[in-house]
């Protein structure tokens, strides 16, 4: 790692970028333009986000709040819990002295905001002895933590054993390297059934005990109830957003996809996310009423479904490009995890979670339930073609969202999705969904530059006659 890189902490840098970015829109348009010039490195992305209007502003505020908590965690005498995103956040927001920082979220922020992405942190992982073939979603931020360039976590939570080895490895490595206690939440590789539910619940209770022990505080019933209620409310709005996204043209602006899952992963159960969702819904309703697509031009030339990960590197060019091409970006497949009772759950009730806030016990069961339906936990833990797994979800989403094509982008570290993406592609093509596998890395543009990806996606749409 270069000396300059060591001068600032990762969490501080992200905090300062997002916080200042979240304020630039507070004044007039002229002031905004002037301020943008002061943040040359990431003005592209900030502008891209803020151009979404109120939802963009709220998204930035939500990020600022999240990063502020992380940056000040120890000053405020709280405990920092670091983990991977396949462990649901909702639990942690029910503790008053725990702040969750999630590896992938930090990586995504850094990938989008920092000039050279997270390359140096990723490389630092190798320098520290962690394998270079591992997933960039973790390596990107874990490298900074290994190098001591962030608030040191007080404990680690990993929800990946049984889902993703490389992810779980990153946490184990970090735990050993920095000597931080680690809890591994595990998932049998079957999705449904009584035994599975029991297993989750028992494991989840063990997790709560672990958190209580290391946080030195107890899970508060009232707080948990209010977080879960908020979560429920959010699910209802998301349900409506999905419903609207089905329209042709799709009234959802491409970047909302990012807001949707970033919010869900980062701030589930927090008021800031509810506010964001409400304003997103507002925009979509207006678009729908006017029969407009969510793209800037209001037109829709094609509908795109990402069947794995969006492409994050540098300046959010992915979403902006999609927008400029008048392509609707439909809600990402991997975030298709539903609350029981919504339309899409019909016929697949066993694949949904239920939030029941009657008693402490039912709430804990709900948490376990939510967690066992997190992205990847749901789609990747069993055979790809089993009920409720990757293929099933892809076909299901295509039926309701009617995409013209689907694109796979992953991480070079992803054994699971690379292990079966050729099979998925075959099946999807037979199903009638044009499918492009991109040999690129969503978090590392050294594998393939955005220009390369853009070129390949354009070529695909052209050759396959997708773009009207």
């Amino acid at each position: 790692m270069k000396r300059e890189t060591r001068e600032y902490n990762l969490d501080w840098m992200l905090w300062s970028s997002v916080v200042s970015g979240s304020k630039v829109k507070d004044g007039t348009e002229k002031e905004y333009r002037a301020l943008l010039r002061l943040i040359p490195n990431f003005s592209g992305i900030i502008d891209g986000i803020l151009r979404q209007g109120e939802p963009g502003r709220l998204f930035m505020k939500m990020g600022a709040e999240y990063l502020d908590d992380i940056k000040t965690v120890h000053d405020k005498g709280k405990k920092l819990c670091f983990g991977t995103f396949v462990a649901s956040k909702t639990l942690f927001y029910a503790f008053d002295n725990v702040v969750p920082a999630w590896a992938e979220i930090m990586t995504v922020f850094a990938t989008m905001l920092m000039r050279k992405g997270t390359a140096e942190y990723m490389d630092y992982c190798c320098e520290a002895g962690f394998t270079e073939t591992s997933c960039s979603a973790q390596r990107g931020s874990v490298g900074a933590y290994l190098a001591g360039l962030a608030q040191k976590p007080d404990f680690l939570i990993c929800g990946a054993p049984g889902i993703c080895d490389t992810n779980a490895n990153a946490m184990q490595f970090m735990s050993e390297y920095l000597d931080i206690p680690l809890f591994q939440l595990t998932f049998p590789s079957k999705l449904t059934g009584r035994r599975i539910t029991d297993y989750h619940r028992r494991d989840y209770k063990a997790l709560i005990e672990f958190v209580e022990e290391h946080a030195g505080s107890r899970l508060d019933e009232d707080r948990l109830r209010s977080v879960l209620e908020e979560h429920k409310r959010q699910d209802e709005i998301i349900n409506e957003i999905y419903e609207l996204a089905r329209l042709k043209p799709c009234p959802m602006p491409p970047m909302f996809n990012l807001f949707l899952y970033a919010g869900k992963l980062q701030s589930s159960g927090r008021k800031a996310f509810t506010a964001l969702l409400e304003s997103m819904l507002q925009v979509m309703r207006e678009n729908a009423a006017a029969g407009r697509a969510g793209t800037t031009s209001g037109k829709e030339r094609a509908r795109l479904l990402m069947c794995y990960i969006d492409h994050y590197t540098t300046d959010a060019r992915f979403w902006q490009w999609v927008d400029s091409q008048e392509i609707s970006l439909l809600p990402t497949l991997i975030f298709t995890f539903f609350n029981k009772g919504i339309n899409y759950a019909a016929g697949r009730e066993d694949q949904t979670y239920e939030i029941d806030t009657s008693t402490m016990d039912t709430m804990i069961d709900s948490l376990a339930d939510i967690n066992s339906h997190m992205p990847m936990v749901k789609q990747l833990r069993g055979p790809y073609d089993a009920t409720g797994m990757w293929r099933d979800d892809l076909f299901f989403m295509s039926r309701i969202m009617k995409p013209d094509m689907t694109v796979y982008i992953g991480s070079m570290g992803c054994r699971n999705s690379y292990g079966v993406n050729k099979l998925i592609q075959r099946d999807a093509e037979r199903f009638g969904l044009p499918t492009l596998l991109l040999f690129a890395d969503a978090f590392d543009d050294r594998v393939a530059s955005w220009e390369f990806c853009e070129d390949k996606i354009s070529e695909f749409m052209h050759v396959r006659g997708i773009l009207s």
Partner: protein
Amino acid sequence: MINKMKEAAHCLQNTSVKEWKRDGGKVVGYSCTFIPEEIIHAAGLLPFRLRGIGTTSMSIGDSYYGAVNCSVPKCILQLAGQGSYKFLDGAIITNGCDSMRRLEETWRKASEDYPGTLPDYYEYFPVPHKSVDYSIEFYEEELNSMIESLQNHFNVKISKSSLKKSIKLYNEGRKCLQRFDELRSRQDVPITGEDAKAVLIAAHAIPQEHFIDMLKEIIEKMEKAPSVSNGKKRILLMGSASDDIDFIHVIEEAGAIVVADTVCYGSRTYSTLIDEKSDPVHALSSHYLTQSICPRMLGYYKTRLAYVMDVIRKTKVDGVILQNVRFCDLHGSENGIFERDLDAAGIPCMRLEREYGPLSETGRISMRINAFMERIS
């Protein structure tokens, strides 16, 4: 005797398997040490560990797997697609690691294009990633359903007493292997690492009864055998699965002698015995699910380190080779921490990433091993 073992190590369908088949016996392949061979054995079937040796092309492996998957399951898929595994009557795939668990799907799908290459009995077996009471319970239930499905498919009965008999037999095998390990790592090493590896591979490729008889003879010879070590550096081999005798050959060519290994196909499977008194299925599940020597059991690094340090102390090795197959994340990342901790303990070690099977790059590997030997001499 050792030649028989070598034959078993060098090819898939060895003489014993052929004889077994000829006598009307059935063979069930399985992908990792978390499948109790005892159960397959108790069903009167021959458990056979899936391997990827002898592959000369990846044309089938690469058609279904992605570019960033480990070549161990890819080679197995290649062999399966080529029809080399047609002698199997069944196969059980586990979630040993992410690449391996995907073999369940890739093989199943490949068989649509290569008809007749999927065994009639084909199951995916989920192994939990934790050693706690409720995961052991879960695993036990899975074992029970495996027993049931074997019984149904092969029309056999797996009784408690036959299970107990199998456990007893395999425990005897484990005891022999423990003795074998003691001998191979004594001061005057009586067997090359290459030959020793052949024995360890054969343990999962020929009928256990037969294996134990042969092993006993080998042990007897070893007790009196002259030393083959003469001044060679004693090496402990750690990391990814290694059933590749030629790889050991390359290491030993460079002036080393492998006297111990903790890799899959090494002491992992027999360092402890199974309780013969309690309920057999329960005994199996508490044995197998507490073998945390494999890094797939994430979060148990400290246990593994203690185990390795113990092996190092007992076998008095001069150096440790921490190898991993490319894209093997489990071992790749753990080797990094091992390196740090072994370094700190003053034990020379070297990390080495390689390709699996025939794709191994002899020249470059031997250059590195040479340098390592020069370093520790």
